[in-house]
């Protein structure tokens, strides 16, 4: 059936220089564009990126990544290269389910774990099975996809929060199963309980073993490039459009000839298959798996990657994975504590720069904080020298400066607690103030935050890492709520 037959000549896009008029369609259509221009650095990056077509982006990413093994040590390649790529793959799998189909799947990590454990069982001394990866990887991928399908069947009628609860339960049940249930099969615990499964074979294809970090990295890079390409093509196909349509409006999608339930299952199975594949590589690269690898922290990390990058954007997933893994490594316990300190102070400065206008107020706050610190430190030193006798934890570029600025009493346990509670009170007070009063109150609050940081958090690197990580995410999401490369979703009311 042919409607119309010919396509009328398209009208020219509205002239760039001519100001569009209010109420006219073009004006409405270009609201987004104009808003983007006011978005500062992130907006500029976004616009630049839009001019780089996806194939060029992929080529650029692969080209840069391919040089890593040339100048990185084995340890760094493992921590920075391999882990970033593993995060990319995990993010890509989750992005299919959450980004494309809009299904809030909180059990995604279980598919990753299932893949890793299944690979471990088929390629270790646990049962003395040592199949080549040529056989195990396709088998694991198929089995994980099937598991995704099985989880999807009861879940397909659940929406939003309900689906999230069911899948979260599934994820937790998986961890419980491998950790505590550990059923006895053929004379030994199937999953090895808390010890997990160790001595897993490296990936081997047709007798060629990926034993070195370098080989593993290049294999991963190849896999990431292929999966990225496939997903890009898929998202621009009937299936990708159908997924986005059902995310937008399932009822309308169903009425437009899209089998919504089947596509939900497909998304689950597809995302699970990618996670299962990632699990194989993870198990073979780490050579050991334990239940602890597949807990809630990893789930949060992967969601952070997808959300930070911009839900539904492939480039966003890659950038999200790079940013998140880099900040993890930057804050890793084996790195000097000064890294965390640097990040802490940079974050404060970043937040101030982003939120305080005009410039003189910003300068006043900065100056105020620096002067306040210097004055308070001198004053306390003169009155009660023992109050500033504490040692700045772990030296570094910043530590020296900080030592003459923040008061750190000797044996400061109780002081730290009091400071912490005061900080909470100060922040609460800050929310009640407006205008110039808030700017003035901000000065002692920031100083107090620095005191709390130097007296309590620096001494607990594990806690401090997560707090900083959270703060980093919050500040990034404040700048771009839709994620670095996401497009803001619009609802018309």
């Amino acid at each position, binding site marked *: 059936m042919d*409607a*119309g037959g010919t396509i009328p000549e398209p009208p020219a896009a509205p002239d760039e220089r001519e100001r569009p008029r209010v109420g006219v369609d073009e004006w409405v259509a270009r*609201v987004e564009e104009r808003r983007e221009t006011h978005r500062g650095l992130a907006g500029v990056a976004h616009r630049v990126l839009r001019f780089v077509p996806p194939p060029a982006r992929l080529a650029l990413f692969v080209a840069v990544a391919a040089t890593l093994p040339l100048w990185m040590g084995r340890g760094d390649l493992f921590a920075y290269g391999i882990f970033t790529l593993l995060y990319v793959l995990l993010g890509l799998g989750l992005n299919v389910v959450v980004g494309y189909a809009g299904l809030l799947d909180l059990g995604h990590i279980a598919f990753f774990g299932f893949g890793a454990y299944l690979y471990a069982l088929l390629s270790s001394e646990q049962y003395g099975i040592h199949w080549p990866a040529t056989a195990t990887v396709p088998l694991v991928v198929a089995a994980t996809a099937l598991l995704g399908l099985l989880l999807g069947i009861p879940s397909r009628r659940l929406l939003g929060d309900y689906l999230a609860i069911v899948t979260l339960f599934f994820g937790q049940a998986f961890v419980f199963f491998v950790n505590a249930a550990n059923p006895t099969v053929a004379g030994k615990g199937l999953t090895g309980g808390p010890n997990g499964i160790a001595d897993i074979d490296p990936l081997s294809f047709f007798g060629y073993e990926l034993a070195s970090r370098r080989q593993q990295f290049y294999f991963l890079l190849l896999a990431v490039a292929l999966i990225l390409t496939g*997903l890009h093509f*898929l998202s621009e196909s*009937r299936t990708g459009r*159908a997924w986005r349509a059902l995310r937008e409006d399932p009822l309308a999608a169903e*009425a437009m000839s899209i089998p919504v339930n089947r596509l939900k299952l497909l998304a689950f199975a597809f995302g699970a298959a990618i996670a299962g594949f990632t699990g194989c590589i993870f198990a073979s690269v780490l050579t050991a798996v334990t239940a602890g690898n597949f807990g809630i922290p990893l789930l949060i990390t992967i969601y952070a990657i997808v959300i930070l990058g911009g839900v539904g954007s492939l480039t966003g997933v890659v950038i999200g994975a790079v940013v998140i893994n880099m900040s993890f490594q930057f804050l890793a316990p084996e790195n000097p504590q000064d890294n965390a300190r640097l990040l802490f102070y940079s974050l404060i400065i970043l937040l101030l720069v982003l939120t305080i206008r005009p410039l003189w107020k910003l300068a006043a706050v900065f100056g105020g904080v620096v002067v306040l610190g210097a004055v308070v430190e001198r004053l306390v030193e003169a009155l009660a020298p023992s109050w500033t006798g504490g040692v700045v934890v772990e030296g570094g570029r910043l530590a020296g400066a900080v030592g003459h600025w923040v008061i750190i009493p000797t044996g400061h346990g109780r002081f730290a607690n009091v400071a912490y509670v005061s900080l909470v009170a100060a922040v609460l007070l800050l929310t009640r103030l407006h205008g110039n009063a808030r700017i003035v109150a901000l000065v002692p609050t920031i100083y107090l935050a620095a005191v709390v940081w130097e007296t309590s958090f620096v001494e607990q690197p594990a806690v401090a890492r997560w707090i900083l990580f959270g703060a980093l995410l919050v500040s990034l999401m404040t700048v771009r709520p839709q994620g670095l490369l996401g497009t803001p979703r619009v609802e018309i009311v």
Partner: protein
Amino acid sequence: MPPLLQLQGVRKSFGGLRVIDGLNLHVDEGEIVSLIGPNGAGKTTVFNLVTGIYAADDGEIAFAGRSTAGLPPHKITRLGIARTFQTLRLFLNMTVKENVMAAAYGHTKATVVESMLRLPRARREEREIARMAEEKLGFFGQRLVGYRWDQPAYSLSYANRRRLEIARAMGSNPRLLLLDEPAAGMNPAETHEMTELIGRLRTDGGYTILVIEHDMHVVEGISDRVVALDHGVKIAEGSFEQVATNELVVEAYLGLKAAEAG
């Protein structure tokens, strides 16, 4: 030859509320039939029953001689029935063209693997439905073509969103179009344009049309036949003049006194 769409003795209740009560309705191939009635008469429910969103409690719904009972909505759409929504349910965050292309899911066949590898069939189908979408959007003159193809649907004006709803329905290659208040919320000029458009949908597009409409100028301008509903019961059927002067219809719209006075 059986009518394209036939409803016989269709009933539907929600709890104790009878929304459709023994409705008989038919639409012949090539016809434009208007469904009118006061708010709450059950007009949109008829659409929901025909498209399979609700299942009828009783009675028979047949499309092109084939019963649609038990079929899910997407299968019914594939048979050749497409609808628009009164409340506008576009895929707002997809582009204008993608909205129409998404509706082509039912008559494309490329598998996931074919799409991921861009195998020939996937590429050919993509080209075909992109061309199809441009054609359907071209049906609305210059309103939905050119640079608008790649703009998100939310950026369209209200009237253009109504037009896109129709274009999207056309994208599923239907024989029967169900239009739910296509002129609602439009100004007189746009309403006039919509009246002409519905006529062209039949003559140029070859669609059979069942339309719900409140604007009597539109109904008068387009209908071969008008069916009036009230409380889920058909109270009148015939040409516009016959139905418009029918006492029951006047009573349903304006109340008993007005009908007596008239």
